[in-house]
């Protein structure tokens, strides 16, 4: 394998904000992560550990208190066309059809109707929803909505896609189907993906690399390479062992949390 290139680097990111009660909350503590090109990275961590904040800072939706984000060696300020994002839910424009939602990014770039039509067609095929091109989001199931949200992010042709618990609101069965489909899409285009989840199982099923975060203020506690061949089998001993190890790490964090912060 070639020497892999770091495409996204978050350096010493810290984030403090004031809660509604007025106390200062440390969401992130000097977190540094490196994401290599074409990698599928999952971040898991106890809830409230600041993993979403980390992602939002990388996306340019929030500013870090200290630290910097680099994309291909250049410092990022604000959002960047090469970095796309998929949110947990309800991010499609309810007044636009599936097709118009997919090409939303192209609309902002003032692309012609013809280009939009072509791109829409390609991604409708990819997510297998051609017959829903004229449907509105409220007519779709949660899983379908997330498929459209993924297609919308891809249609903008980013190099990196950030995913903030995109399947978190789906039922268990749909979630497994969506994981399979996401891998299927990813294997076709190999975009760099940074995926946040609180499901250890999801992380092992999807990722090349799992970053385990500590409790708040979050930092990366451990990086685990997942070398099992895809599609992965949940019944594998290796799968189960890895799942168990990571769960133990997380449990430690939760227990610690209780002692330190009763």
């Amino acid at each position, binding site marked *: 394998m070639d020497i892999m290139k770091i495409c996204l680097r978050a350096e010493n990111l810290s984030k403090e904000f004031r809660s509604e009660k007025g106390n200062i909350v440390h969401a992130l503590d000097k977190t540094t992560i490196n994401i290599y090109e074409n990698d599928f990275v999952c971040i898991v961590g106890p809830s409230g550990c600041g993993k979403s904040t980390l992602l939002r800072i990388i*996306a*340019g*939706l929030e500013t870090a208190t200290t630290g910097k984000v680099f994309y291909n060696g250049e410092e990022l300020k604000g*959002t960047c*066309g090469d*970095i*796309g*994002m998929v*949110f*947990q*839910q*309800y*991010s499609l*424009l*309810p*007044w636009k059809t599936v097709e118009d939602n997919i090409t*939303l*990014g192209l*609309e*902002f*770039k003032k692309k012609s109707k013809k280009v939009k039509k072509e791109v829409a067609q390609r991604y409708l095929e990819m997510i297998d929803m051609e017959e829903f091109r004229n449907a*509105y*989001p*409220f*007519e779709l199931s949660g899983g379908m909505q997330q498929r459209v*949200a993924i297609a*919308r*992010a891809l249609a*903008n042709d980013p190099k990196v896609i950030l995913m903030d618990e995109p399947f978190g609101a789906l039922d268990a069965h749909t979630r497994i189907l969506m994981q399979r489909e996401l891998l299927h899409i990813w294997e076709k285009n190999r975009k760099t993906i940074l995926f946040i989840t609180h499901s250890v199982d999801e992380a092992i099923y999807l990722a090349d690399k799992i970053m385990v975060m500590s409790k708040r203020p979050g930092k990366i506690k451990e990086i685990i390479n997942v070398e099992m061949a895809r599609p992965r089998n949940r019944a594998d001993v290796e799968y189960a062992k890895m799942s168990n190890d990571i769960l133990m790490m997380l449990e430690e964090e939760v227990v610690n949390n209780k002692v330190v912060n009763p």
Partner: protein
Amino acid sequence: MKKNILNAVKTMIGPVVILILWGYGAKHIDNQLILPKLSSVLGHFLTPTENMIGLGSLIVNIIISLIRVMIGYIIALLIGLPIGILMGYKKTADQIINPILSLFRPIPPVAWVPLVLAWFGVGSIATVLGLKQGMWYIYLHNFKISMTFIIFLGAFYPIVTSAIHGITQVPKTLIESARVLGASEADIFFKILLPGAAPTILNGMRTGLGSAWTSLVSAEMLPGSISGLGYLITHAYELAKIDIVMAGMISIGMIGSLLDYSIRFIERNKFVWGSGTETDQ
């Protein structure tokens, strides 16, 4: 199809029951001053162009009232929508304007009457345009500034409030996902906030039109009014013509609900997604 007929029948039940009770009651009471006969009231609707004891015909009074409401309403839209949208969009604007609005909001339009009269007197659109005589003067003098102001007040608050609410309730994820996709600030405003707020704003426009129409009666009771449904009702009452009073009331009710229905119709057809998301969450 069958369902449609059934639904139509259901909506007719209420009015029919009222008509029956009225017909029976009128016969029983037998006093035109307390409850006029069904036929004498409904008769006015069969001859809408007939002049009623010097008060003008029903249809002319309705048209004059409608024009007055529309003038006040359109001014309320022109002023209320931009202010409300600005307040929803910029927090500073909200902080500056909101204290003024919340002080004035509880004052009912009628309470403004003495002041309004002192300010505008019997001035009308004709006065504003500098007309002193002629045919246009006669027409336009019907549309008093004082009335327009009262109607404007009635419509203004629901419109402003809904515009503020409409803009601020657009989910943050919609704005953020647009940002990540490369939206400019103008894109966010015109392609996310405005369409996202549209159903709420339209709903406020409907409430505003309703309360503009309701303020009309108070507006048309102002001195200097010599036409309109409100005038028709007050003056028919002075002449003890209760049947005309009731014909005026029924006209107000029917036109009000017709206006309401027409905006609902737009809501239902243009903003299917608006009601869809509301029931979703």
